[in-house]
């Protein structure tokens, strides 16, 4: 029975990935991408990786899907123009999936098939090394949290997590470089749509509470800083779409402080630990629980702010391109 479920889920994921890349219209592609992300999240739940499932559903399917949907505002009109060819109504067959000469396609197909066989063999023959389960189980009591994934993320391999917060900040900076920093310079008007206003009123507290729950629950179960951060970032995105961008009401230095405090405090803590004779990010076991909670909270706020800023900046790329010219 479980083999049946797993097999169907695997076929579904492969089918959705194929359809996603072969769909004729970009809107289809983006919505199939949502579905693919959620199918993958289900696969991870089947594999017992609930943290990963939450992260996938929230960040990869949710946040990236929203960014892609937003990008459709740019691309969609021209794409449908291309579809409206002189032959009225009839979609030109294979306008998007190109028709290159026969030989390159054959070579590509052959190469991909060979590659598939090689990777299947590599996966099949991976030796059963036992992994690091035993080691992480042995040191779990010293980590200050009860959930092994959180222990790895914020204690055993805290350096990775610190760098990851830095990567998000780098992504934001790179988007600033590409699009020009002109966040929140123009006046915003609140959305007139009553439905959107009610949705914002209802979802803001719910998302905030659920994010806080995930953050705190991360020490004993699936959840943690990143999952909480995406939910809090969703608040920022909702408010932005409702015409009330959160960062427009706060001074610029406060925004910069919020964006960098996760990375900064993490590093400061690491240096303080080094000054007291430990290694970088080696928490003393007696205080590790509270230290992890503080680091996680600050990191979650920072990541949420960074995700909101990424969305807001990419979202504003569409509006007044002339202003972009002048500021970049």
């Amino acid at each position, binding site marked *: 029975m479980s083999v049946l479920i797993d097999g169907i889920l695997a076929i579904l994921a492969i089918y959705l990935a194929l359809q996603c890349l072969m769909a004729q219209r970009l809107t289809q592609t983006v919505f199939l991408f949502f579905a693919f992300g959620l199918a*993958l999240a289900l696969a991870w739940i089947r594999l017992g990786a609930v943290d990963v499932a939450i992260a996938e559903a929230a960040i990869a399917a949710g946040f990236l899907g929203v960014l892609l949907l937003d990008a459709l505002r740019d691309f969609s009109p021209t794409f449908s123009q291309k579809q409206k060819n002189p032959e009225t109504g009839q979609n030109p067959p294979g306008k998007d999936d190109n028709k290159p000469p026969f030989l390159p396609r054959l070579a590509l197909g052959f190469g991909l098939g060979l590659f598939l066989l090689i990777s299947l063999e590599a996966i099949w023959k991976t030796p059963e090394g036992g992994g690091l389960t035993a080691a992480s189980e042995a040191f779990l009591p010293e980590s200050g949290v009860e959930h092994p*994934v959180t222990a*790895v993320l914020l204690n055993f391999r805290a350096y990775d997590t610190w760098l990851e917060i830095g990567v998000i900040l780098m992504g934001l900076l790179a988007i600033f470089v590409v699009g020009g920093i002109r966040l929140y310079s123009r006046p915003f008007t609140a959305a007139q749509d009553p439905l959107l206003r009610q949705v914002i009123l209802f979802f803001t507290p719910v998302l905030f509470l659920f994010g806080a729950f995930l953050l705190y629950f991360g020490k004993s179960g699936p959840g943690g800083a990143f999952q909480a951060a995406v939910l809090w970032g969703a608040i920022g995105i909702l408010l932005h779409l409702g015409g009330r961008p959160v960062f427009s009401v706060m001074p610029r230095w406060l925004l910069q402080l919020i964006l960098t405090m996760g990375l900064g405090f993490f590093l400061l803590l690491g240096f303080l630990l080094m000054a007291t004779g430990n290694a970088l990010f080696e928490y003393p076991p007696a205080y590790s629980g509270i230290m992890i909670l503080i680091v996680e909270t600050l990191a979650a706020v920072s990541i949420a702010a960074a995700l909101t800023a990424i969305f807001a900046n990419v979202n504003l790329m569409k509006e007044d391109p002339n202003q972009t010219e002048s500021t970049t």
Partner: protein
Amino acid sequence: MEAYKIYSLTSAVLFVIGIGGIFIARHFIKKIIATIIMGGGVFLCFVSFAERDALNFADPVPHAMVITGIVVAVASAAFALALARRIYQLTGEESFTKDQ
């Protein structure tokens, strides 16, 4: 047949679909999505091996690495998306090839 075997074989297929998509798809958005699908294949491989190496709980190190990886992949995809939109705004092109 255990669950991890099914999913580790699926991961190879997803990875190859992603690579093929990068070559075949033309539109920027499709290319970006193809890289994400490729990444999804790699992550699925990691997590299925974590399930294989489970003792009392599944190996948490691959789980943590996959969570890190998802966030990094999304950050880079967001950057790629911003680049694509900027290219479109400046040149009006939505793919690397000009023959359309």
